[in-house]
């Protein structure tokens, strides 16, 4: 948690001044009943109109000053909590972007987004409440009790019993109901989940005419939710009646014992009224306190989550790396005995040895989980190899500054994604000062030029979040173009042509071959053997191991896995089946 205090320290002044002013307001509030008692006991008893008016003036003055103090405190609290939250967001945003993929995998993107949004908001709210209420409410409880003691010590035992009793009731009910709330929230989430599931599968549900079954499932969930909410509602409904029962009975006790004291002249009527007033103040403050406690415990949990994220260090660092000089005539990429395993799993890549030369086109093929994407994630150093070495232009990639390393690469990931802005702003990602001509060229190679030119604003066409105003195929082509601007030395395409129709796919592969600078190294992952047929080298992966490296024709002869993949895509099931039989017989 200490990593969060750092950012609070800046607001030391706010954190001290805010509560002090809040205390001032509370003190004024506590004086009010005393003044009122004076009006009754002195003013009315002595029939002193001037005194009454004077005390009335004091009351107004107290509320004006109290208002001023409260406003100042609210101002300070808002400045401090918002400022703190804003800085925390900036720091965390920067921090998350610096984390390597291993850490991102560990937390999960959606969990990071929640931490970022709701947790920071919760912490921010906690800070504000800390200033505004956390000190005021207990102070009012204690202050009211103390004032009562000062006023007439003999009656204070009623206060000393009442306040803890109310606190106990609050504690008991809240500790019973709080855990159930999270459970109920989950039940509510379940309702939403079923609704979403039903809408996602609306065609299947109707195809099987299973509306009734869905309805039953849904009604079970809503019923479950309603029952448990109603059950817990019965308990939490006790909160107000019980606290007020205790407070009201305490007032009755004040009347009862007060009556005796007044009879013997130990207490005045005005003082009794003041007691009653204090009692009401205590009850209100306790209710506020209970709510603040709930809020603060939530904020504390959020703060711990944010702090945990902030404390996570990136496992990949380029600190102290100066720009490196490439070794001449060395392979563009060279894997030497490379093994890699994701944290908590077995080896995803085992003992990979391959040299890829400048200008080569290399295909990678294999089933899901065979390690294709893993290889690609190692090249920009998203992950560090577990064993062996990965060299680019003859230099171990751990010696590169990340910026120098990554600027050599044009990456097109499997999930094509654009970012909000314009087509042009997306195209400038690799090279900020690229000219329009360079962009057009990249768009043409990526087969995106025509549809971009048909847009109203051409390359200035707005792009919405994640590029959702473009179709899947358009997004893929634009994300390919983005990676090509500024002629990267290495182009990596991770199965990124799946949404393209056949003709476009073909044209794109042709353009990649002919229109990029001759020494551009291209690495292409694909599921389709036909797409890789013309590659200089095809790496066939099977469960993390290299099953074969070579050209298409060689592999067909030598590599069983490759042949199987190729055949499955070319022939009908019977042909495959009968061939298998033949093979089996031969064996």
């Amino acid at each position, binding site marked *: 948690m200490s990593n969060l205090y750092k950012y609070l320290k800046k607001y030391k002044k706010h954190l001290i001044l805010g509560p002090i002013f809040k205390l001032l307001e509370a003190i004024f509030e506590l004086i*009010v009943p005393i003044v*009122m008692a004076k009006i*009754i006991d002195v003013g009315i008893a002595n029939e002193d109109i001037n005194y009454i008016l004077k005390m*009335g003036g004091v*009351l107004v003055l107290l*509320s004006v000053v109290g208002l001023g103090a*409260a406003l100042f405190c609210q101002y300070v*609290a*808002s400045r401090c909590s918002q400022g703190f*939250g804003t800085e925390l967001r*900036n720091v965390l945003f920067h921090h998350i*972007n610096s984390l390597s993929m291993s850490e991102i995998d560990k937390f999960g993107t959606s969990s990071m*987004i929640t931490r*970022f949004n709701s947790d920071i908001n919760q912490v921010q709210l906690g800070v504000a409440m800390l200033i505004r209420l956390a000190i005021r409410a207990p102070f009012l409880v204690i202050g009211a009790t103390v004032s009562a003691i000062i006023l007439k010590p003999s009656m204070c035992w009623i206060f000393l019993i009442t306040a803890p009793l109310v606190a106990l009731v609050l504690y008991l009910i809240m500790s019973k109901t709080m855990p159930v709330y999270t459970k109920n929230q989950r039940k*509510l989430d379940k*309702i*939403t*989940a079923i*609704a979403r*599931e039903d*809408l*996602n599968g609306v065609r*299947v549900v*109707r195809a099987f*005419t299973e509306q009734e079954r869905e*309805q039953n499932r849904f*009604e079970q969930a*809503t019923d479950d939710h*309603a029952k448990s*909410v109603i059950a817990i*509602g019965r308990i939490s*409904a006790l909160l107000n*009646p019980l606290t007020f*029962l205790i407070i009201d009975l305490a007032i009755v006790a004040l*009347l009862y014992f*007060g*009556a005796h004291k*007044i*009879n013997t002249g130990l207490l005045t*009527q*005005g003082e009794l*009224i003041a007691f009653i007033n204090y009692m*009401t103040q205590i009850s209100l403050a306790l209710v506020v306190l209970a709510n603040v406690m709930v809020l603060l415990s939530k904020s504390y949990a959020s703060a711990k989550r944010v702090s945990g994220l902030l404390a996570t260090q990136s496992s990949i660092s380029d600190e102290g790396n100066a720009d490196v000089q490439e070794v001449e005539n060395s392979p563009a990429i060279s894997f030497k005995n490379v093994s890699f395993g994701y944290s908590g799993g077995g080896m995803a890549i085992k003992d990979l040895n391959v040299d890829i030369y400048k200008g080569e086109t290399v295909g990678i093929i294999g*089933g*899901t989980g065979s390690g294709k994407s893993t290889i690609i994630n190692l090249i920009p150093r*998203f992950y560090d190899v577990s064993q062996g070495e990965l060299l680019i232009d003859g230099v171990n990639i751990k010696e590169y500054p990340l*910026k120098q390393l990554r600027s050599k690469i044009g990456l097109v990931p499997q999930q094509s*994604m654009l*970012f909000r802005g314009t087509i042009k702003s997306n195209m400038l990602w690799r090279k900020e000062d690229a000219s329009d001509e360079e962009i057009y060229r990249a768009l043409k190679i990526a087969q995106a030029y025509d549809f971009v030119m048909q847009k109203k604003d051409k390359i200035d066409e707005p792009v919405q979040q*994640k590029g959702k105003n473009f179709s899947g195929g358009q997004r893929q082509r634009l994300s390919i173009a983005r990676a090509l601007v500024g002629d990267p030395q290495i182009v990596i395409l991770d*199965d990124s042509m799946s*949404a393209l*129709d056949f003709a476009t*796919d073909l044209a794109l592969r042709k353009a990649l071959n002919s229109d990029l600078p001759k020494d551009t190294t291209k690495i292409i992952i694909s*599921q389709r053997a*036909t797409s890789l*047929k*013309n590659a200089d080298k095809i790496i066939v992966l099977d469960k993390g191991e290299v099953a074969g490296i070579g050209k298409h024709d060689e592999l067909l002869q030598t590599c069983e896995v490759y042949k199987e993949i190729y055949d*499955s895509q070319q022939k*009908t099931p019977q042909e495959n089946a009968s061939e298998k039989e033949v093979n089996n017989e031969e064996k």
Partner: protein
Amino acid sequence: MKKNRSTLFRLVSYTKPYAPLLIISLISAMVSVAVSILVPLMTGHAINYMLEGNVDFKKVFEYIYILIAMIVVGSISQWTLTASTNSLTFKTVRNIRNQLFEHINKLPLKFIDNQQQGDIIARISSDIDQVSEGLLQGFTQLFSGVMTIIATIAMLFYINWIVALVVLLLTPLSLFVASFITKRSHSTFAEQASQRGEISGYVEEIFTGHNLIQAFCREENCAEDFAQMNDELYKCGFKSQFYGALINPCTRFVNNLVYASVGVIGALISLWANSPKSLDVGNLSTCLMYANQYTKPFNEITGVITEIQSAVAASRRIFALLDEKQEESDEDSDTLKECDGTLDLDKVGFRYVADRPLIENLNLNVKKGQKIAIVGPTGCGKTTLINLLMRFYDVTDGSISVSGKDVRSVTRASLRDSFGMVLQESWLFEGTIRDNIAYGKADASLEEIIEAAKLANAHDFIDKFPDKYDTMLTENGDNLSQGQKQLLCIARIMLTHPPMLILDEATSSIDTRTEMKIQQAFYTIMQGRTSFVVAHRLSTIRECDVILVMKDGNIIEQGNHEQLLASRGFYYQLYNSQFQNS
């Protein structure tokens, strides 16, 4: 206003089955308001009999007993108020939810397809929550709040009209202050909410594209953009927090003024000891207690009113969805019995949008057991054809008949039962594998299910799970691979033995071995059944009797593989680019 009222009435009509609860909560509200008004009065009376050195104990105790009785009754009624309102609320909410869900499942797909999914879900979840919080609970709060105010003023007038008048005159001040601040803070709240939405959208985008940010070294640029948005959020966040935080101190201030005025004016009045409207100390204390609890309902009511407003808006959205027209009832239609697997499309025309024809004059005669491949680039309208066959949409012109019967003349259920459909996007629900396979036949025995899974090539991988067929699938089956999901969907069909099939081959990345299994399963299931396949694999396409080549929503070529190749048209082009060397 009229609209608001009818929405309210409609909403209240949902509470009808729970009228007893409603009555209990209204009575409880009245009792607890009465008690909260009478307690200060009784306390005041008790104090009145406590003159210094001369306390009338008999009278004081009398009032104390009355007070205790009242407090107990008041506490109980407060509990029944909250508990019964709660019960009423959530039972009503459950019923609205159930009705809404049932309604959604009867809406035409045309509506659902055109609606944002998130929007429909919001109505079924957060909008209904809004209604439960705002309208139903707010209603009783509003009721008891108004009651308290009226009763307090009445009591004040009963005790002393001058003090009452003072309170009545100062009331508008409190209302004015509260509404002034609420109005101000409302716009800043909205501003903050939209800025927050902006930021969370941006953050989601950036975090999702984390690998791209790093690959393109965009960390600094993003941080700059973010800092700018964050700064905006700081500005409006500060404003809205500060304005929001003004309400409490300000109303407290007004409250204090009322309190002071009542105290001073009450004291002055009590000095006119001889006047008939005189005020004794006990009554003054009662007035002070009233003054203290009087402003509370005002604060609550201002809060409740905004809640109610947004609840009315939410319920209007819910009712709008409920008022959408359902699919035409087909209760009186025939059921399609013993479907023979023949299918005719006669001059079929279809358009999603009135002025943009998509399919025109499509004729197709499918014999029993024929296999039809549908080929074409993405977005060419393949799914439209599925929509028409399954009668998810109705044709605009011409007709489709199955077994010689127009599909519009039979029930949707019986028509759809005669089709087995496997979509590219495999749909699984949260439940066991067994339940998922038995989706179309809930009473299937485990043996039948295993048999179906075996036919679909799914048994092997299911058998490897520790819980086998009882393995729980997470939402949308995320713990299975794409291919495994599709195998389960095929197993589903194997269980129901439909005479006709609609298969949608996956384009997405499925590893080759699973893909082979899927192809084999497809092959097995197609035996003897009339089948429509949206195909991407040459192997599948070559298997089919008729190939429909679609482009831009039209069927531009039709024939078998050899015929189409010979005609050297669009299919020929497709074939060459996809399956031959580049």
